[in-house]
């Protein structure tokens, strides 16, 4: 029976769905889909309703590929390739968010403006009162503070560069491994499409 679309947060989970079942005797497809859902949830936190819609799409695609003769594993991988990886999906969904160039954008700008006003106020206060209270020492203190900030900023920057370099090396190794797997999947995808054309 059709149910109202409703909001994802108000959506009551269905206990009969495979990912809500407590038993561990899932069929291989359900197991794969459950793994994909948990993987997707880690990378891209989408409303439950959207994930359910993407899952329906994926299952439909897999069913069609299997009808064309692909085994389950290959059909699942090709289906996933066609649906797009979490990162690609994230990009598409991010652009479609109402907050993109909307409320989020205004909030960012407003907080930046507020921060600017506070900094300007602090500078003005220092300029007016610190000179009177501390005399010449105020400027030496300001200079010392400035030098300390520069040193601390430089240290943080060096650390970040080190981390980024390490991550880049790790990513490029992972990418190379993935590329060889993707090449194989694309070949399967092309074969599946070619097969579908022949059937038509």
């Amino acid at each position, binding site marked *: 029976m*059709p149910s109202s679309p409703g909001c994802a947060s108000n959506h009551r989970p269905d206990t009969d769905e495979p990912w809500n079942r407590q038993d561990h005797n899932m069929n291989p497809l359900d197991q794969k889909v459950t793994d994909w859902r948990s993987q997707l949830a880690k990378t891209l936190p989408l409303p439950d309703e959207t994930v359910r819609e993407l899952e*329906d799409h994926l299952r439909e695609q897999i069913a069609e590929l299997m009808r064309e003769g692909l085994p389950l594993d290959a059909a699942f991988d090709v289906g996933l390739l066609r649906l797009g990886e979490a990162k690609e999906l994230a990009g598409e969904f991010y652009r479609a968010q109402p907050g993109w160039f909307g409320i989020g954008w205004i909030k960012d700008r407003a907080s930046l403006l507020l921060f600017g006003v506070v900094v300007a106020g602090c500078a003005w206060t220092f300029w007016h009162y610190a000179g009177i209270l501390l005399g010449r020492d105020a400027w030496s203190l300001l200079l010392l503070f400035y030098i300390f900030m520069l040193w601390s900023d430089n240290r943080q920057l060096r650390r970040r560069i080190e981390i980024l370099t390490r991550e880049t090396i790790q990513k490029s190794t992972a990418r190379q491994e993935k590329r060889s797997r993707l090449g194989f999947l694309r070949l399967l995808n092309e074969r599946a499409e070619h097969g579908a054309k022949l059937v038509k």
Partner: protein
Amino acid sequence: MIKKELVAASAEALVLSLLAKGESYGYAIIQEVRARSGDELQWSDGMLYPVLHRMERKGLIKSRWGESETGRKRKYYSVKKEGQRMLAQHRAQWAVVHAVLAGLCEQSPA
């Protein structure tokens, strides 16, 4: 193969045109676009859903949860009145683009 930018620009008009024929869902929409364009117009599957959701937020289409033939839950989309008005606008605009291009193609030797 048609360029990604053109695919994205025509997505709303195509979805509205398809839904104007009757209620449908994501997978079927993609398959129909592919079939009608002879595989020339290929949407990445993940691209369609944000488009559908954005159109729903804009009040052009509406959705309901139903069941597929296998009993799985499925989200069906249909066009709203505002969507029909937008479709008329899209058609008029695409007709202008088509007329200009066709006119220019007739004039040019290649």
